[in-house]
Every structure is written in structure tokens, then in C-alpha cells.
């Protein structure tokens, strides 16, 4: 067995470990990115649904709900 392949063998677990860590990190980054849409959706719900709902009477409430649902 040559020197190179011995070094390669010794390195392999470290490389594998690094691959796994990169894959895990990518997944974690992706999770964080997905929060952007969540946050935008929740903000939209508050500003464009809850706020108008809290200001209107019964008839206006229903109209707001219908309009919001249709606008999606």
C-alpha cells in the first residue's frame, strides 16, 4: 500500500464528516430562508386582514374577509 493511499484512508473519515456537516448546514440555511415567506405572510395577515377587521362593523367584517380570501 502506497503512502498516498494510506493518507487518503486517514483523510476519508474527515472528508465524510465534512460532507455531512456541509449538507446539514445547507439544510439549516434553507430553514432560515424559509422564515422570510412565513414572516411576510404573517405580516400580511396582520396588516391586511386583522387591522381592517378590528376597525369595521359586522357587514364590513364579512366584506373584508371575502376580499382578502379572493385576493390570494
Amino acid at each position, binding site marked *: 500500500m502506497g503512502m498516498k493511499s494510506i493518507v487518503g484512508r486517514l483523510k476519508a473519515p474527515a472528508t465524510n464528516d465534512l460532507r455531512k456537516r456541509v449538507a446539514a448546514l*445547507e439544510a439549516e*440555511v*434553507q430553514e*432560515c*430562508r*424559509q422564515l*422570510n*415567506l*412565513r*414572516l*411576510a*405572510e*404573517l*405580516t*400580511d*395577515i396582520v396588516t*391586511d*386582514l386583522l387591522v381592517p*377587521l378590528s376597525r369595521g362593523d359586522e357587514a364590513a*367584517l*364579512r366584506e373584508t*374577509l*371575502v376580499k*382578502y*380570501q*379572493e*385576493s*390570494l
Partner: protein
Amino acid sequence: MRRLFPRPGAQVSSVSVDAEGITARSRREVVLDVSFDGRRIHSFWLHRDGRRTSVPHTWLVPWPQSLQRFLSGTTRLSLTVHETQQVVFEEEVTFRDGTDRIAVVNAAGQPLSLDKSLRLVQTFDTRSEQHVRPLLDAIDHVLTGLDRAGIQAFLAYGTLLGAVRDGGLIGHDSDADLGYVSKHEHPVDAIRESFHVQRALVEMGYRITRYSALAFKVDVVESDGVVRGLDVFGGFMRDGYLHLMGEIRTPFKREWVTPLGTASLEGRAFPVPADTDRFLAATYGKSWRVPDPAFHFATPRSTHRRFDGWFRGIRVRRPLWDRVYARRPGPAAEPSELARWAASREDPATPVVDLGCGTGTDVLWFARQGTPATGLDFVRKGFERAEAEATAEGVDARFLVCNLLELRSVLGTGALLAADRGPRVVLARHLADGVSRRARLNAWRLARMVLHDGGRLYVEFLVQRGDGDLAKRQKAQVRTSRMIARELRSLGATIVERDVVRLPSGDRTGRSPAKICRMVATWE
């Protein structure tokens, strides 16, 4: 690996054509056009799209799947080098011993050809000025709407390329694309702006289909009733990079986009980015001036990952259901077993909500019996016929588009349905086995909102595939009843009933039985 792009001076030889595909020899990558009886049908890159044969420098490009069904009969097949228009093959070719001329046309007899995604479409090279005018009107119409919504949009992608390079639509293209660059620089703000733009357009009477949190399609109904969808790709600047859905991420300056300039498209002036050269180079590479009907985007994976993470995930499995409902199937004559079962146990006056109503069969059945019923589904085409029938009959059935992968859709629809007081019956038939965990949790959230004043949720899903026929028909994936029960409990539900039912032999084709689980939950 270095990508070898087509370069001038390719020598194409040894061309042969058979039922499997087109074989040709060329040391260099080359773009080739295939014509049937003088009309372009298909274009490809010889090396990229082909596979090596045992003969050196010779590649076989198989016939695309979408073209297979037309390959019976005779045609004068020619193969042309796209860039130089040099004809490298021209012969009468017969496929499958057919005697008729091959006609690649749609049901109305209109000529079709393959676009760069290998879809059969009516491309512009087969359309006359009178066909193109409605598209230009549609572009105008959508640009006007966007402008009123505060968005300065411009021609993008193939439409921009055609306008700048030739002053017209590209022959092998089939649709028009628009783009805009938000004034915001954070994904959250760009998304919120996109929501507001959609809302403004809906108020103006436009019909919108959302592709992602930053791109949507605007439907334009033309004078002959044909609905044409224009894609609007949102974008934003961030950290010195232009991000544009569809899919560009490149170092860029805002002043290369705005203030917008104009370019002529088929004799009409339309807005375009300020620096079209830089914009097109960012889209198609520096060689954008060289026509290539088989161009594929080579987007870095990191760009896909960014856009996927920020903006996508709201249309999972949507293409599959769009295909299922593309022909607008009518509601079935008989309701589902689950609907009958629920009806036999519930007060007929209690309104029903069907999550994932599909063709609206059960909704219509309940409404016809006097039970107010609402159907929710994310594919409008699925329930359109049932909706029309319900309107014609004057029964109390209502249908709403609801996407379980969009939190706004779930909460907005839930709030609307919860505005009517009183208990409900909620059905979810073959929903749990057709959607992801995220969509299921949203479905249960929606059910909880709707059942605020009491009532029961009836769930039915596949727990054993059996011979696979039912799974195939329902596009279902097996779930365990424990998994579904756990999800429901995590949102505060109580499981009051759980039954595993073996499907009767009449409902299946093979020997191994499929099994479904019926579960009843409440939020008392």
C-alpha cells in the same frame, strides 16, 4: 466540468434518422433545427441533448417523448445548422410504416412545435400578425395594471431578447414574459410588495395565479375567449446583486435597470431595462446576440437554493393536479363512501366543508340534499364544472380556491368560514395521503378554525397500498393512522373514532386489498 457551448464552424456529417432519433457527427457542439415538410418542429444541442454512440464524435439525440405520438407517417425531414442555416440532411422519412403525411398539430389543426422545455406549443413562427396582436395587447394590458399598482415592469427573458435583437417576438418562443425590480432590498419586503401588487390587480379585475412568493401569472382573456397567461417575474437588488425570479442572480447596479428605456416589439414601444446589453448578458450570457432556440439556463445551484428557500414551496405537487384537472372533469354521479357515512351520522342542517374537494362531487351531493356545502381546493379547474352546475340549480354550494401551502390562504379562508357561527362537518377525503406534512398541519389548522363552534372532522386516507390501483387513482401515498392522529392531537384535537376499512373487492383490480383509515376528530 467546463460546459462547451456551440461555436461557429461546426462541421456536421454522417446524419441518419430513424425511429429512435437523429444521429449526427460533429466534433464541436452545434445547435440543429429539425423541420418536417419545411416547418421547424424541434431544436437541440447535439452533444448536450444526445448520447455518444460507438462511432467517434457521433451522437444520437432521441426523439423527445412529447413528439413520439406524432411519429407515424411520412415527412420531408430536414436538419439545419441553426446559426448558418446550412442544410445537413434532407430526405423523405417514413416512421412506423405510416402512409399519411405527418402533421404536428393540435386538436384544432393549429401547427405545434417544441419549445426549449420540450413542450408542444404554438410558437410565434407559425402565427400571423392577427394572432400576435392580442399578445401585444395583453402585454400592454398587464403593464398598465402593474403600473397602476405602483410597479414599473419591463419586457424580460425571451420577449426582451426578441425585442432588442430583432424588434419582434422570437419565432421559436410561445409566450411573453415581464419582470420588475422591487424598490425593496429584503426578501420579506419584496414578498409583501408582491402580495400587495396581486391584491391591487385582483381589485382591478385581473385573475392571478401565484407561482411563488415573488412571481405570478396574470390571465388575460382575449377577444376570442382564449385565456393567455403572462408571467410576471419579481426581482430585487441586494448586496450589489440583481435577483430576478426565473432565474438570475448576478452582480448588477440599479441604474442598469431604472430609469427604464424602451424598445420596439413588433412595431410597438415597450419598457425595457436601462442597459439591455448588460441585462441580456446576465440572462443569456455574453453570446446573447447569437440565436439559440435550444438554449437552457445554466443557473448555479446556489441561486436555485436561494430562490427556493426564500420564495418557493407553495406549489408542491401542483403540476400533477393541474394535469389531472386540465380537462375540467365533471363531478361524479355518486358521492364518496365517506360523504355517505358522514351524512348518515350528522344533522343535515349542519353545513359541510370539504377540504380538497377535487371535482366537487361530494359538495354538490350535499348541497342538492339541502345541506349547505363549501368545497376548497387549490386547483380551480377541478371544481369549475360543479360550481357551474350548483349555480344553474340554485343549490347552496360554494367553492373557494385555498392553497394549504400558503399560510395566508389557510388563515384567510379559515377566518372567512369561521365568520359564520355554528357547528360544521369537515371532510378531508384522500387529502392526508396526497399532501406533505406541512400542508396537512395547515389543513388541520383550517379544520380547527372552521370547527370553532363544534362539529366533527372526518378524515379518510390510505394505510395499505394493496395492489396499488387505488393509490394510483388517488395519487395517494400510504400514511399510518398513528402519524395522522399524532398530528391532529398536536393541534389540540381529540380522536373520537378510528377505523381501518378493507376496500370491497369491487373497488380493486388485483388480489391484495387496499386499506383505508377513517378517523373522526373534534375540538370540543
